[in-house]
């Protein structure tokens, strides 16, 4: 799986996960047809989500954000993530959960990922599908 940073490598966006950072042009990024997009600021961008649904782009939720923060910050991230998840799900967007771990300590097991997905608002069946099937569809063959 190729993960690209919008600012540095625009040419590698296709067939990859795109991380939407501060100051990136979202609609320019959509035109590059990435397979999945991460909303790193966790804000609900209704227009972007609509376009993502039309283009069948997956919304990727970063779980290391949740597990690595602490106290009030974690509560805030959990709240924003669950709101984003609810909205994306109501728009019938495919959602994937990934840790985006940079270090061993940021990883989590399948069981933990499943529980995190449920904590955010997914039911058992949806969480299993998001972690296995949707994630597999992101793999570059």
């Amino acid at each position, binding site marked *: 799986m190729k993960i690209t940073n919008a600012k540095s490598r625009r040419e590698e966006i296709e067939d990859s996960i795109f991380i939407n950072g501060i100051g990136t042009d979202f609609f320019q990024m959509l035109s590059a047809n990435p397979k999945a997009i991460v909303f790193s600021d966790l804000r609900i961008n209704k227009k972007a989500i609509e376009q993502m649904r039309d283009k069948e782009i997956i919304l990727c939720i970063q779980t290391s954000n949740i*597990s*690595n923060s*602490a106290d009030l910050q*974690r509560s805030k991230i959990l709240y924003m993530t669950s709101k984003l998840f609810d909205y994306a799900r109501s728009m019938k967007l495919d959602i994937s959960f990934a840790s985006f771990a940079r*270090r*061993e*300590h*940021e*990883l*989590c*097991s399948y*069981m*933990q990922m499943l*529980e*995190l997905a*449920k*904590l955010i608002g997914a039911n058992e069946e949806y969480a299993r599908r998001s972690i296995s099937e949707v994630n597999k569809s992101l793999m570059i063959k």
Partner: protein
Amino acid sequence: MMREKRRYILVESANEIDENSRKDFEFYFYSALLHSIGEINYFKANPKIIKYVDRKGFVLKCNLVMYKETLNALTFIKQLNKKDTAFYTINASGTMKALAKQKQ
């Protein structure tokens, strides 16, 4: 009186747990778990390390009702005694015997 239903979770630590400092580890581990799960949920979960499997693994017992909260609390523990760490839940079962079987 109804018997309390338990869940046994096989946990792996990212760092090795020294045999001589298990008491200290347990103190910091329970404190971190209490911080993550909250005081009210902690007494309901009643978590307890009942067995060390190897230098990194151990079996954590908790109440079935608070099983999910305990799993999430384990995910949220990233520091013990100011050292970076992580706990990965490998497996869970209703009995120790079944957990041992699943591990094999």
